[in-house]
C-alpha cells in the first residue's frame, strides 16, 4: 500500500492534466478541475508524506519500480524524507498558486492552455523530486522547463518574449550540459539508477569502475542545477523571467522550481556521490570526494548570489523586480549551508547544514510565493506594481498589507516566523563552521550572510515604506481588492506564522530529510539495485 502511494502524486497530476485537456470546452469546469487537481495533489503528497515518513510506524522511505522492473533496469521512484519534504513544498505552493490563478488570471487567457501548462509544470517538478534515475531526472527537468518557457513568454510584449528567449537559450545550454553529465556518468559507472551509481561509486574496485571523471561530470550537472536554482553566475534569466511570467506562475518558479535545482544538488552530490572517495583534496574542506569539490564552488556561488541578488534588489522600480532579485539572494541563503555541509566532515554540521538549507527553502517557498501573489493582488486591485505609482496601500488594503508585511518580515528573519528559523539555522551552520574549523572560510561566510541579511532589510523596507505607507496615490485610491485573493494570501501568511510557532515537527521533518540525504547506504538498500555484478 505504502509502495503504491509513492507514485500517487505523479498519477494525480497526470490524471489532472488529461482531465483538464478534456474539459477545454467547459472553462468553468476546467477552472474548478484545476483547483481540484491542486487539492488532490496536496492530499496525495500529504498521504505519501504521512504514510512513508511522518507516521509513527512509517518506514521512512519507500521505492516504487515503474513498470515493475527491478532497479537498475527500470526507472525507480523514491520517496524518502528529502523528497517528501520537497513535495510538500511543491504541494503548498502549487495549490495556492492554482487557486490564485483562477482568481487572478484573465478568464479568456486562462482558456489558452493555462491550467494544463500549470499542471505540466507541477508534473515536471514532481517527477524531478520523485525519480531515482539520472536520465529520468533530465526528462522531468525538460517537462518542467518547457512548461515554464511558455509562461515566461505568455503575454504579448517585447520584454516578455525577449526574456523568454534568453531563458530558453540558457536552459538549452543547461540541458545539453546535463546530458553530457548523465551520459558520461553512464559510461563511467555503467548505470543510470542513482542508487546503483552511488553503490558503484562507493566501491569502484568491486564494480570495475574508474570514478575519476565523475567529479568533472558532476560539475557539469552542477551547472544545470545551478541554472534551475538561479545561483550566480547562472542567475541571469531570473529577473526577466520572473517579471514576465504571470505572477502566480512566478510564484511557482520562485517557490518550487528554484528548489528543484537545490534538491538535485543535494540528491546527486550527497546521496549519489556521498560515498565516493575520488576527488580533490582542498584546504578547509573535509575529505577528498566530489563533495570536497562541491563545497568551495557552492559556497562561492551562494555568497555571490546573496550579494548580487541583494544589491540588485535594493533599488528596483517595481515590486516584482525587487522580489525577483531577492529570489537570487534568497537561494544563496539555501546554497551556503549546503556548501557548508559539503565542506564539513560527516557528522552533525553536515546534517545541520542540510537541515538549515531545507528549512530555509521551506521558508522561501512560503514567503516568496506569498509576496508574488500579493503583488498580483495589488496589481489586480490597482493595475500597477510600480513603486512610484503606489502609496498608502496599508490603509487601503489592511489585510493584504498585513500579509505582505508578514512575508517581508519572514524574509528578514523576524521570529517567530518561518524565515527566522531558516535564517537562524543558516547562521548557526556558519557559526559552527567558524567555531569548529580553522581558516577564514567561516568568517567570510558569516560576513556575507550578515551583509545579505542587512540587504534584505533594505529592500523589504523600501517596498514597504514606498508603497504601503505614504500618501495614497490615485491608483491606490481607486483600488478594489478581491477578498478571495486576499484569502489565499492569508492562508499562506497563516502557514508562515504556523510553521514558525509549531516549528518542532517541521524541524524534525527537515532533520529527517537531511538524514535521508546523507543516508547513502539506506538509499541504496531501499532501491536495492540488483544485477550489475551478477547479471
Amino acid at each position, binding site marked *: 500500500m505504502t509502495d503504491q502511494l509513492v507514485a500517487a502524486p505523479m498519477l494525480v497530476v497526470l490524471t489532472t492534466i*488529461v482531465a483538464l485537456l478534456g474539459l477545454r470546452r467547459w472553462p468553468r469546469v476546467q477552472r474548478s478541475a484545476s483547483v481540484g487537481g491542486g487539492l488532490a495533489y496536496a492530499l496525495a503528497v500529504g498521504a505519501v508524506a504521512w504514510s512513508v515518513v511522518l507516521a509513527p510506524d512509517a518506514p521512512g522511505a519507500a521505492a*516504487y519500480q515503474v*513498470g515493475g522492473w527491478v532497479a537498475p533496469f527500470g526507472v525507480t521512484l523514491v520517496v524518502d524524507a528529502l523528497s517528501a519534504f520537497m513535495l510538500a513544498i511543491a504541494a503548498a505552493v502549487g495549490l495556492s498558486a492554482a487557486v490564485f490563478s483562477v482568481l487572478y488570471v484573465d478568464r479568456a487567457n486562462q482558456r489558452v492552455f493555462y491550467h494544463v501548462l500549470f499542471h505540466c509544470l507541477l508534473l515536471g517538478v514532481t517527477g524531478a523530486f520523485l525519480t531515482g534515475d539520472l536520465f529520468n531526472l533530465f526528462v522531468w527537468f525538460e517537462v518542467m522547463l518547457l512548461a515554464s518557457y511558455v509562461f515566461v513568454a505568455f503575454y504579448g510584449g517585447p520584454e516578455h518574449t525577449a526574456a523568454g528567449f534568453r531563458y530558453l537559450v540558457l536552459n538549452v545550454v543547461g540541458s545539453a550540459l546535463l546530458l553530457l553529465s548523465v551520459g558520461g556518468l553512464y559510461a563511467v559507472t555503467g548505470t543510470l539508477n542513482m542508487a546503483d551509481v552511488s553503490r558503484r561509486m562507493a566501491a569502484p574496485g568491486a564494480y570495475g569502475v574508474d570514478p575519476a571523471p565523475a567529479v568533472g561530470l558532476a560539475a557539469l550537472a552542477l551547472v544545470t542545477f545551478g541554472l534551475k536554482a538561479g545561483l550566480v553566475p547562472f542567475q541571469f534569466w531570473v529577473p526577466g523571467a520572473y517579471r514576465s511570467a504571470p505572477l502566480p506562475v512566478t510564484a511557482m518558479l520562485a517557490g518550487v522550481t528554484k528548489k528543484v535545482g537545490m534538491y538535485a544538488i543535494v540528491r546527486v552530490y550527497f546521496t549519489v556521490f556521498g560515498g565516493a572517495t575520488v576527488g580533490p583534496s582542498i584546504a578547509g574542506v573535509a575529505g577528498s570526494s566530489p563533495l570536497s569539490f562541491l563545497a568551495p564552488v557552492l559556497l562561492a556561488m551562494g555568497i555571490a548570489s546573496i550579494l548580487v541578488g541583494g544589491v540588485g534588489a535594493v533599488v528596483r522600480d517595481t515590486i516584482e523586480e525587487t522580489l525577483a532579485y531577492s529570489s537570487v539572494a534568497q537561494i544563496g541563503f539555501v546554497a551556503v549551508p549546503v556548501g557548508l555541509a559539503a565542506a564539513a566532515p560527516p557528522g552533525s554540521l553536515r546534517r545541520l547544514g542540510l537541515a538549515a538549507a531545507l528549512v530555509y527553502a521551506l521558508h522561501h517557498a512560503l514567503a516568496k510565493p506569498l509576496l508574488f501573489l500579493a503583488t498580483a493582488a495589488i496589481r489586480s486591485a490597482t493595475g500597477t506594481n510600480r513603486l512610484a505609482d503606489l502609496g498608502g496601500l496599508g490603509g487601503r488594503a489592511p489585510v493584504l498589507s498585513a500579509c505582505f508585511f508578514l512575508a517581508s518580515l519572514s524574509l528578514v528573519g523576524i521570529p517567530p516566523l518561518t524565515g527566522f528559523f531558516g535564517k537562524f539555522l543558516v547562521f548557526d551552520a556558519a557559526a559552527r563552521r567558524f567555531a569548529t574549523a580553522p581558516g577564514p572560510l567561516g568568517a567570510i561566510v558569516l560576513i556575507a550572510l550578515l551583509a545579505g541579511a542587512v540587504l534584505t532589510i533594505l529592500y523589504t523596507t523600501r517596498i514597504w515604506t514606498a508603497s504601503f505607507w505614504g500618501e495614497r496615490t490615485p491608483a491606490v485610491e481607486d483600488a478594489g481588492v478581491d477578498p478571495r485573493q486576499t484569502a489565499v494570501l492569508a492562508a499562506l501568511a497563516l502557514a508562515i506564522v504556523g510553521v514558525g510557532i509549531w516549528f518542532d515537527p517541521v524541524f524534525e521533518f527537515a532533520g529527517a530529510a537531511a538524514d535521508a540525504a546523507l543516508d547513502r547506504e539506506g538509499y541504496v538498500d531501499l532501491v536495492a539495485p540488483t544485477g550489475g555484478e551478477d547479471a
Partner: protein
Amino acid sequence: MKTTARIMVPIILVLAISLLLQGHNLPGGGFIAGVLTTVAFALVYVAYGLDYLDAGVLGRDVEPGRGIFEHRSVTAFRRTFILGLAIAVASGLGALAFDEPFLSQTFVIVESIPIYHEIEVASALAFDLGVYCVVVGVLLTILSVVGAE
C-alpha cells in the same frame, strides 16, 4: 509536384502504419510513425496549401479569412493529441487495475490462428499508439498554426 504528392501521401501513410505496427520488433514505433504521418500531411500542406486538407480531403469548406484555430482540421489535431495523451496515461494507469505498478506492460502470444499461426498481442502497443496519436496531433497542430502565419 501536386501529382507526386497525391501518389506519395497515401504511400507514406501506409509506410507509417507499417512502422507503427512493427515497432516492437523492427525499427519503427509510435514516434517515428507519428512523424512520418505528419510528413505525409505536411506534403499535402506544401503541395496544396493550408486549406486543402479541410476543403479537398475532408470535404469541408473553409471560410476565407477565418482564424487558424477555427479550422476543423486543427481542432481534430488537438483532439488527436489529447486522445493520445489520454491513451498513454490510461495504458499506464491500466496496470494499476491488475495490481501492477504504473506503466507495467505485458504481452500474450495467441496461438493457432489461421494463416497467422500465432499473434503477439503486446500492451506496449497501446502505449505506442498513444505516442503515435500525441505525435501526430502535436506536430500537425504546430505545423498548421505556424504555417498559417
